[in-house]
């Protein structure tokens, strides 16, 4: 659990460094902080530790999740470019500090052993996100998004807390181990009915965070309103942490009660898949399309949660990593292009703004294409194997109909992802050479190559996960 302590300290240090350091050097320092904490995380490999009065546990699974989350954080910081040159209205030190704090929350969510810790982690992560969403203070849409996110998020947190209370009431414990012990020593008939309500309410609280339908309504508005760099953070870090928690709650803790929650999660999954994919098809804004795409990917990942196979945890890990790399790259390219197009076109985040990108920016266009192909699940990219493993899980569980829906929805997905590729390569437009920083290029290429390597050689990481 040293990374949790380290990241908190780093965040505080970052706040003070803001007085003296320039924004570009702050970026480098923050990167070093995250790399340092990743090293600390990796040091616990192959060990199981209990922390903070047994409220947290680290094992290989939680370390893998932590590493993916911190990798996402690393990419976001590398793509951030020191938050531009606007000295008056952007405060990089604070942003970086908040990013580090929210990483702490995410780490708590992947290694909790006590439901209070889950709640605390979720809140640390969420409150940080509310702030960051509204960080573009002069932009009305950013403010609106922050408020919407906060209102709906607090609603969901309420449900989660209520669920925790009901579970505590019926099992007399907040510890996962205690809950499991009590559940196995009580006859199923004598369990109170509000236990089931508690499980469902906890699930709903978490499903909100990963934007599963019908709790997804905030997602498009918030994703679109927030500054792109924080949208990238939201859609990668929050989603991975959320899935780690969902897996832990539904599959590990309450896996024995699957028959009570499976139908519900099933329907939520299918609605998520359909709503996310179909709604994305009509979008003119690439950023909004990516928001719906994030909803649909939550649907695919929920499939493996429903299947609850021995390979589920490793499949969630693989999918999260593939999705993180691809999403980070696509938002990053979108971000720089939108920055360039601001003032030049009316809607800098639309597909039209990407027209003709390949002509003078071949590397940006290539990276964007690889990312979109991975999101669409085309072979030779990581996204293909992510989907493949998920579908295999479903198949092993004999859940054929959801697979058919998921495959059809993937086909719809190809339509809207390829819209981006068409804009970039086939439509004509005038985009000059866009200058990006060195760190940006490194991050872009590493994520891009990672996507391809995982696509060509999936066993490389599958054997670790």
């Amino acid at each position, binding site marked *: 659990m040293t990374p949790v302590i380290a990241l908190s300290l780093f965040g505080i240090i970052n706040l003070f460094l803001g007085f003296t350091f320039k924004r570009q050097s702050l970026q480098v320092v923050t990167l070093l902080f995250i790399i340092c904490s990743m090293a600390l995380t990796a040091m616990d490999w192959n060990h199981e530790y209990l922390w903070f009065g047994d409220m947290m546990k680290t094992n290989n699974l939680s370390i893998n999740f932590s590493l993916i989350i911190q990798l996402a954080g690393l990419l976001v910081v590398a793509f951030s470019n020191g938050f531009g040159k606007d000295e008056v209205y952007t405060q990089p030190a604070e942003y970086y500090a908040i990013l580090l704090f929210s990483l702490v929350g995410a780490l708590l969510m992947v290694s909790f052993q006590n439901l209070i810790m889950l709640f605390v982690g979720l809140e640390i992560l969420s409150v940080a996100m509310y702030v960051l969403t509204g960080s573009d203070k002069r932009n009305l849409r950013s403010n609106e998004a922050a408020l919407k996110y906060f209102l709906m998020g607090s*609603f969901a947190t309420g449900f989660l807390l209520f669920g925790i209370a009901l579970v505590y009431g019926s099992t007399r414990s907040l510890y996962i181990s205690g809950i499991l012990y009590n559940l196995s020593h009580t006859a199923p008939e004598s369990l109170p009915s509000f236990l089931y309500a508690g499980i469902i309410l906890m699930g709903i609280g978490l499903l909100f965070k990963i934007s599963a339908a019908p709790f997804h309504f905030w997602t498009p508005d918030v994703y679109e309103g927030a500054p792109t760099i924080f949208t990238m953070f939201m859609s990668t870090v929050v989603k991975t942490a959320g899935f780690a928690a969902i897996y832990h709650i539904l599959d590990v803790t309450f896996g024995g009660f699957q028959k009570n929650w499976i*139908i519900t999660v099933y329907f939520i999954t299918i609605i998520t898949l359909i709503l996310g994919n179909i709604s994305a098809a009509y979008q003119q804004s690439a950023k909004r399309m990516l928001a719906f795409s994030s909803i649909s990917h939550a649907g695919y990942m929920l499939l493996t949660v429903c299947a609850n196979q021995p390979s589920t945890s490793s499949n969630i890990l693989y999918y999260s990593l593939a999705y993180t790399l691809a999403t980070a790259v696509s938002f990053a390219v979108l971000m720089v292009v939108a920055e360039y197009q601001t003032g030049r076109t009316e809607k800098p985040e639309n597909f039209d703004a990407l027209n003709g990108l390949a002509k003078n920016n071949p590397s940006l266009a290539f990276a964007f294409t690889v990312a979109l192909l991975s999101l669409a699940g085309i072979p030779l990219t990581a996204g293909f194997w992510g989907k493949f493993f998920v579908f295999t899980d479903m198949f092993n569980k004999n859940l054929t109909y959801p697979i058919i829906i998921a495959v059809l929805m993937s086909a719809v997905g190809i339509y809207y992802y390829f819209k981006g590729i068409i804009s970039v390569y086939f439509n004509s437009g005038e985009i000059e050479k866009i200058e990006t920083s060195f760190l940006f290029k490194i991050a872009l290429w590493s994520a891009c190559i990672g996507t391809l390597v995982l696509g060509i050689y999936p066993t490389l990481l599958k054997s670790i996960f």
Partner: protein
Amino acid sequence: MSSILFIPLLPLIGFLINGLSFPKLSNPVAGIIGTIPPLAAFALSLQLFLQFDGNTQIVPLLDWISVGELSIPIAFQIDQLSLLMLLIITGVGTLIHVYSSAYMSHDEGFGKFFAFLNLFVFFMLLLVMGSGFVTLFIGWEGVGLCSYLLIGFWNKKNSYGDAARKAFIMNRIGDLGFLIGIFLLFQEFGTATYQEVFEAIKAGNGSNLGLIAFCLFIGAMGKSAQIPLFTWLPDAMAGPTPVSALIHAATMVTAGIYMVIRANVLFEMSPEVLHFVGWIGLATALLGAAIGLFQNDIKKVLAYSTVSQLGYMFMGLGASAYTASFFHVMTHAFFKALLFLGAGSVIHAMSDEQDIRKMGGLKSQLPITYITFLLGTIAIAGIPPFAGFFSKDEILAHLYHHDIVMWALAIVGSALTSFYMFRVFIVTFHGDFRGTQHQADHLHESPIAMTLPLIVLAVLSVIGGIINLPAFVGGNEFLAHWLNPILPEGSHEALEVHFASLEFLAPLAAAFIPAIFAIQLYGSKKAVPAADAEISGIQKIIYDKFYIDEAYNFLFVKPIQFLSQFFYSFIDFLIIDLLVESTGKFVKSSSNELRKLQSGNIGFYIFMMVAAIAIILAWTLKSWIF
């Protein structure tokens, strides 16, 4: 272990450097970067060869895909067969890289050319080093891609691009068969690793072996240009000459033979397929040699000769003479690469003229090319004691015991070979110069970088026979003993051949008599092949390659075009488009409707959320509520 890994890795690195930095590197630097990897790989292969202890060595590289019960590892297998192939590929490959550095020096795509050559060497090494059919297939497809890229290297000319596409498509037809064969292997044995498959076959497992062998052979027909998939190879001569030498003579086209030798356990279990292999080989050998008789393009003659020689190799395989076939693969790599490079030297001197009718009398201006080309011609014609004599004679000797009809026809083919090779040689180098004054002024011997590979290959073509010198002339049959562990037991029996027998004299006669005849006709009488318009009768049919391209065009291309036109205008337009577009429209319109849910009104959002939660809770707790 590590040195084995470096053998294919080095050319890949060469490809990456040259490919990524083209055209920033200057030509000499690109040439050096391109030539070092095959040379180093040759050195490593030689070291492996010398240290080889007779035991097959498997080097696991990675577990590529493992899903469910399917597991596809990628590993390298170092044994007698792959070691020899390594030496041929890297050795001949290095010589051709050196040659290209001079031959291509005026080309603006110099760095790109070396990048492609290195990529080819990488895939070819992967092909022969792989320890299973899947790795073989990756290499197989990779060399196909490189062949495509290099045939169409001068892509400004449309016909070259067409030739490249033709090669690719013809190979794809073969590859389909090959792929089906691999799938069948997975179905039968659950694996495609050589050792596991062959052990299972030896243990008597598996049915459908004949079908599998047949499918694999279809792949070999495409890659090694056998009837009916051979027409791409002559067209492939559109590529730069070093490419023809390396890919379309010495290495890639022998991949089919390598594959059959590798899978000899499988092929031995299906004698009817072996029989088929033999007859296809014979037919190809005869057809190639016959078309070669009257071609006037120096590279076309060599191309048909390659088709014909590959036919001989398959004939040998059909008679289970694996050693003899592999022997011919090796010697053929030497003398055919030599002949192609010699032709390249001539073309270079003649300012890109390829028609032998416009050459003549080049021997004084190109002495080294002349002598080396002569040695190559003697070698391929099968005149002792040059390399081609021993290898071809060994195939013929096996055929004599296998099937006397096949043997007799093969002798005819060998007579044709001798005739057309001497014809080309005499018409090109002897007689009077028939080119333009401009060409005559520019005639020059090629630079040392081009003549050196010629000399090395000429030496190999002359003495190459010693590596499997038969016992009855005092040899120790090194190759036969070397390959023995990987071949079926008893497949190599020492053949007793008597000097005075028909079996020994007929091939000799088939080599000498046509050669003398050709020298008489084109040398002493100074006859020159007729101009295109004057060719008539059967000679015209042969000159026009028996109209096979036209026949294919009529039989396959036209019907397919007609069919695709039909499908396009009827099924595609009326049915598929309608279905797809209405689906698309449906999705779009439903998307438009769903979009309206996203009203932006937070009250509505929360209402939807709460309503959903209420329904879910009611559903979950229905047994308690109702």
